[in-house]
């Protein structure tokens, strides 16, 4: 008898260690404040997903703990001691048991299926109404391009402004660069994902996909490309900035007006560096290769949101981008201007110009004060 209690104690210890490991690795980390957490939904769509997931997650946990615990329990309970020669009863099967453990899981799964399918169709429904904001998302190598479709025609990159409390309808597409034989510039598959606002959706060349977002409250929500898209896949990040509808309107207003293109081009010495061959300086025109620069100073990050928009980050990027983000042998990418003879001073001057002169609400940059 003593032996049996000893055995059970050991089983209990094993089970406790297992559960503690699970709990520690799970709960010890309840909230990375990364604003990219599917467990912390901040809008109706992401909420709907988590609400659907949670009950099934706990059912899975219960079944999992049951089977794992049961396996350990059975193994220990029926263990033979060294030297013991036991002749167990030869059971070949049990039809009632076998049929029931076929049917019970099937029933559980059938129950799961009902809300699952309801939610699938719910999330596939396109939002309608005058409030809905429509944005076309174009996945580039390796950054995001946004075009606001509701008349404003704003072009921007990586950082998406949306009104809070309002559904946003996204049209996801690959770059419409060229067509026909011998054209391979339509990019690769990416996946647009902002976990706190909704699940992800792939961006597939040649197709247009729909995804909706909604944030309950103003705030920033991070995301990143979730489908492997080559060398700098990890550096293809993005940010959604939700504002009150009034603030959003004001932002839209500011973005549609910009300084004259010529002023901007002069500011970056376009004659020498030919920035405009890739970038656009008109607020509603997409760049041929790179992001629109008309309001780049307003943004919080750049280069697929790999970098925060700071003076140091920006001038180093302007000066020698390939050393700051893997570009590999990409046909078209931000070149190394240091190789084209650009001095550090020149790069810093261009960075200062972009930071202060393209922003509608410029911050102060001490490094840029003297010029």
């Amino acid at each position: 008898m003593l032996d049996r209690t000893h055995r059970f104690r050991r089983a209990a210890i094993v089970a406790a260690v297992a559960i503690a490991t699970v709990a520690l690795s799970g709960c010890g980390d309840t909230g990375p404040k990364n604003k990219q957490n599917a467990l912390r939904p901040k809008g109706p769509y992401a909420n709907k997903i988590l609400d659907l997931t949670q009950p099934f997650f706990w059912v899975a946990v219960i079944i999992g703990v049951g089977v794992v615990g049961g396996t350990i329990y059975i193994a220990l309970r029926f263990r033979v001691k060294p030297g013991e020669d036991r002749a167990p009863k030869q059971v070949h099967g049990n039809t009632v048991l076998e049929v029931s453990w076929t049917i019970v899981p099937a029933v559980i799964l059938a129950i799961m299926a009902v809300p699952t399918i309801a939610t699938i169709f719910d999330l596939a429904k396109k939002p309608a109404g005058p409030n809905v904001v429509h944005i076309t998302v174009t996945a580039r190598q390796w950054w995001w391009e946004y075009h606001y479709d509701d008349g404003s025609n704003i072009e921007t990159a990586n950082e998406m402004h949306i009104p809070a409390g309002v559904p946003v309808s996204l049209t996801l597409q690959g770059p419409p660069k060229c067509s026909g034989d011998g054209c391979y510039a339509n990019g690769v598959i990416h996946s647009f994902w902002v976990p706190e606002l909704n699940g992800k959706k792939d961006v597939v060349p040649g197709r247009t996909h729909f995804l909706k977002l909604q944030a309950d409250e103003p705030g920033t929500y991070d995301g990143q490309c979730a489908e492997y898209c080559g060398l700098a896949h990890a550096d293809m990040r993005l940010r959604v900035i939700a504002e009150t509808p009034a603030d959003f309107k004001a932002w839209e207003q500011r973005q549609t007006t910009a300084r004259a293109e010529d002023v901007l081009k002069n500011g970056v010495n376009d004659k020498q560096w030919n920035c405009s061959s890739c970038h656009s300086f008109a607020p509603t025109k997409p760049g041929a290769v790179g992001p629109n620069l008309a309001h780049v100073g307003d943004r919080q990050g750049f280069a697929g949101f790999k970098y925060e928009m700071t003076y140091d980050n920006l001038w180093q990027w302007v000066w020698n981008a390939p050393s700051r983000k893997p570009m590999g042998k990409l046909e078209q990418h931000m070149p190394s201007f240091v190789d084209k003879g650009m001095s550090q001073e020149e790069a810093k001057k261009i960075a200062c110009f972009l930071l202060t002169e393209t922003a509608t609400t410029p911050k102060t940059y001490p490094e840029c004060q003297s010029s």
Partner: protein
Amino acid sequence: MTTVEDAHALVEAPSRRARLLERPRATTGPWSWVTTVDHKKIAIMYGSLATVFLLVGGIEALFIRLQLARPDGTVLTAARYNEFFTMHGTTMVFLMGMPIAAAFGNYLIPLMIGARDVAFPRLNMLGFWIFGLGGLFIYSSFALGGAPDGGWFGYAPLTSTPVSAGYLPGRGTDFWSVGLIMLGIGSVATAVNFLVTVINMRAPGMTMMRLPVFVWMMLVVAFLTLFAMPPVTAAMIMIFMDRNFHTNFFNAAAGGDPLVYQNLFWIFGHPEVYILILPGMGIVSEILPVFSRKPLFGYAIVVMSGIAIGFLGWGVWAHHMFVTGIGPVAVSAFGLSTMLIAVPTGVKIFNWLGTVWGGAVRLATPMLFALGFIAQFTIGGLSGVMHAIVPSDTQQTDTYFVVAHFHYVLFGGLMFAVFGGFYYWWPKFFGYSLSERLGKVNFWLMVIGFNLTFFPMHFLGFEGQPRRTYTYPKGMGWEGLNLLSTIGAFLIAASVLVYLVNIFYSAKRQGREPVTSDPWDARTLEWMTSSPPPEYNFPEVPIVTHRDELWHRKYTEDDEGRLVKLPAGGAVEVAEHGAVEPGSIHMPSPSYWPLIFALALPTLGYGFVFKNWWIVALGAVIGFFGVSGWAIEPSTEPDVHPHMEGAH
């Protein structure tokens, strides 16, 4: 037209026949291995090379974990990281998982069904050499202009765009696509061989419903392989054509569709998951009864659910594509089919537990691994069902949650079964047992390391960490769990090291405890012959009267169903008395031809990758030479008796 008389003449006068190469005669030494057609030797070569690839893929995994241990890791460059995760997946699926199953299948299927060899010994040899040379071919890319870096799944158009666009630097994807075509040829050859062997070569009385479950599962795997390899081969040809000859299969700009690739790949890729896991389920189904001293609980339903998985496995591929925009109707249908496949899987788990329940359980190393399989595979199965909840999957897919999920299935499941299989059959394979003490260290290190590595990944996925990213910035809150995971990975490495030490340590001690034909008190035919078995397996082909034939020669049940030992004799005697003259057993003779034909494939491969038509022509000539020589060579030389010459 060859008449019957001609055929007789060929057999009777072989020495006068024109031949291209002298038949190999070596029975010992390296050449006996290179030219062998013996299923056991081929199995050991499969297993050894797969273990080498296990180590290589494992080292790649360790580098991946080192890179991700801290934010902004600098252990690997982005390019190198992408090569390593691509090759880790490719290696573990094609160069470790499938070959290791082929190793067990090759060794055990003939023994378990009471046959002397597989149906097509030279085809068997071909399968091995294609695997070996194909693996070397893919790995040679590291030295020849860059390794594959498009992911083991290699989605178009990332992989199908010509190299000049620079989406993926280097020729790696060419090596990858050609290499997978090659490996596919080898896998199909092996699958055909296993199919015919199981269907045609069973000993008298070995009916289908008396087959060991492992053989059943390998039969299902052979069917799956046979039908799954063609679509992926087609996809690889299209990738190669798009990259190199400017076709437009997946080029959206010219009307191609990238999703066609995904459909082709996953209609291979999901059956592939079952190709990998079913052998593991078979191994576990053999170990559990032996170490519980009970028959498998519900043999028929375990077999039938394996077959059901084999069929349903064809109807779930698009659950890899829930976020690719295939529409709510399609994702609902594939969500339902994915839920459905959980049913036969659950049945197996419960039947395994039913097998152990009430048994006399010996917690030897093979049993520990088998029990670990049940527990961990269940966790992987449950997270798999969570993917079937499509909206949840839109958060989970392409994150570390998925990495956790399939490692619970393929590592916590398949690899634990494989290690259990190593410890269980080692005495049969090599004539000595692995140390139980080291085996238990191996097991516990692996359990702890495995769970430490992969359990935290569930949470990393929910917290937003995508897979296949070479780095992550500071401040994402992923640092702690990633570090834990890296520590776990090194514990796994330590456990594998213990396993390797065990092999050599136990080999040195061998002879101290001679291994009998049946060291575990087992149930199936392979334990009726000596350890290791002679080349001809069984001196006399056994006549089978029961499922678990050997068990029924040792035990019977009393009226209450309790186990009763029969008086000694019977089976063991047959195996060891050696009444039959070995030389009178006609075994297939060794051959060069399958190896020569196999050499043609990487030659062709290099020719295509470097677009050197002279090399392609050379490969074609070698291939033609190999096939021709093979065709006119009889499978057995009547004038050569390697067993006689080999007998000392």
